């Protein structure tokens, strides 16, 4: 139990001698951590417990864990070269926030369909261009990215290839999130009276165009 916490500061941390703590840490048989994804210690081949039943190995009194693969946090971001004629920007030469082409795209969509608001954002939830009735762009950009992230994860879970859109229908309106290429999302707030088929028709075309635009010159 002395090794319960190699970083322990005396008195502040969960005490290694706490009976409750030792109850968790000492009772398990020294079974290796089976069913762990990633570079966990090797499980013995005869270990047949399904993951849900695996008795959690405390491993505190055994040899140090196998070295981890480089953590995601430690990986260096890919170097990105911005074209010389473009000031280095977070979007790396692609249309940045408030690019006129994005505003034009939003205007086109609104001309075709009666909408409450439109947001074009990066897939990590930062607004690129928008036309909203309220001053809530920060939040709506993040929500669009959350819808995209959840949608992609769901589509991936069921083997449905690539995410296209997510429709959230309230009793009095819609919030629809369209994939716009790899790194962007188009979100539309529409009234309940909206013709969803028409919206899809227009917005999918626009999302495809945005995807190409935001992917930058190839």
């Amino acid at each position, binding site marked *: 139990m002395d090794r319960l916490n190699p970083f322990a500061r005396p008195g502040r941390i969960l005490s290694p001698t706490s009976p409750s703590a030792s109850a968790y840490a000492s009772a398990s048989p020294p079974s290796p951590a089976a069913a762990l994804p990633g570079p966990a210690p090797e499980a013995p081949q005869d270990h047949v417990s399904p993951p849900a039943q695996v008795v959690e190995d405390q491993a505190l009194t055994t040899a140090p864990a196998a070295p981890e693969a480089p953590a995601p946090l430690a990986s260096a971001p890919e170097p990105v070269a911005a074209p010389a004629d473009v000031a280095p920007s977070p979007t790396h030469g692609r249309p940045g926030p408030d690019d006129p082409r994005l505003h034009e795209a939003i205007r086109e969509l609104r001309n075709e369909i009666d909408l409450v608001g439109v947001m074009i954002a*990066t897939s990590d939830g930062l607004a690129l261009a928008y036309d909203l009735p309220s001053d809530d762009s920060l939040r709506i950009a*993040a929500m669009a990215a959350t819808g995209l992230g959840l949608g992609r994860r769901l589509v991936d879970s069921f083997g449905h290839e690539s995410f296209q859109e997510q429709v959230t229908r309230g009793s009095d309106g819609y919030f629809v999130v369209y994939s716009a290429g790899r790194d962007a999302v188009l979100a539309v707030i529409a009234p309940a009276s909206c013709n969803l088929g028409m919206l899809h028709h227009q917005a999918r075309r626009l999302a495809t165009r945005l995807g190409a635009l935001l992917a930058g010159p190839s």
Partner: protein
Amino acid sequence: MQTPASAAESVTVKLLVTGPFSAGKTTLISALSEIPVVATEAAVSDHTIVTKANTTVTMDFGKLTVEGEGLHAELLMFGTPGQDRFSFMWDVLAKGMDGYVLMVDLSSRESVEEAGKILRYFREMSGAPFVVGANRALDNPDALESLDTDLALQPGAVVVPCEATDRDSAKQVVLALLLEVLTFVEDEASVGAE
């Protein structure tokens, strides 16, 4: 926390792992989970790309089973996005939580400051027990030393120095929280009995 009547020692605990951008939330859950982590990551598009390339936009989910004397606990670990523009997800994910880990990257002054704000947000939202997972503690002893003050922690608040990439170290963080949760539930029960 759900406690089946037939097996009083078996508990399912919902834990949140929160904290600022790049504090090590996804890393912690990935290090611990017995199941493939359900992660929702998107490429970072702003200046924070110098810190890391991907960021959680919805949630992470992982599970850890803990066996001890007279206890079988299934820890359901929900990781939140870190940037405050995603704070609506904090509200969504915090629903029904039994406790939370506040992760903080001690190597970054900004991370500590942001963690303080997030902690205030969570303490206003919920009275649930929490522990602080002080990530990258080995290399940042000074930041660890001043963390109580920097986060305005109450006396008795639990800080667990850790390296989120290390499974055993990560485990200390959630075990400390589990202990806090069990103690909290016991206290609530005894108050209720009076």
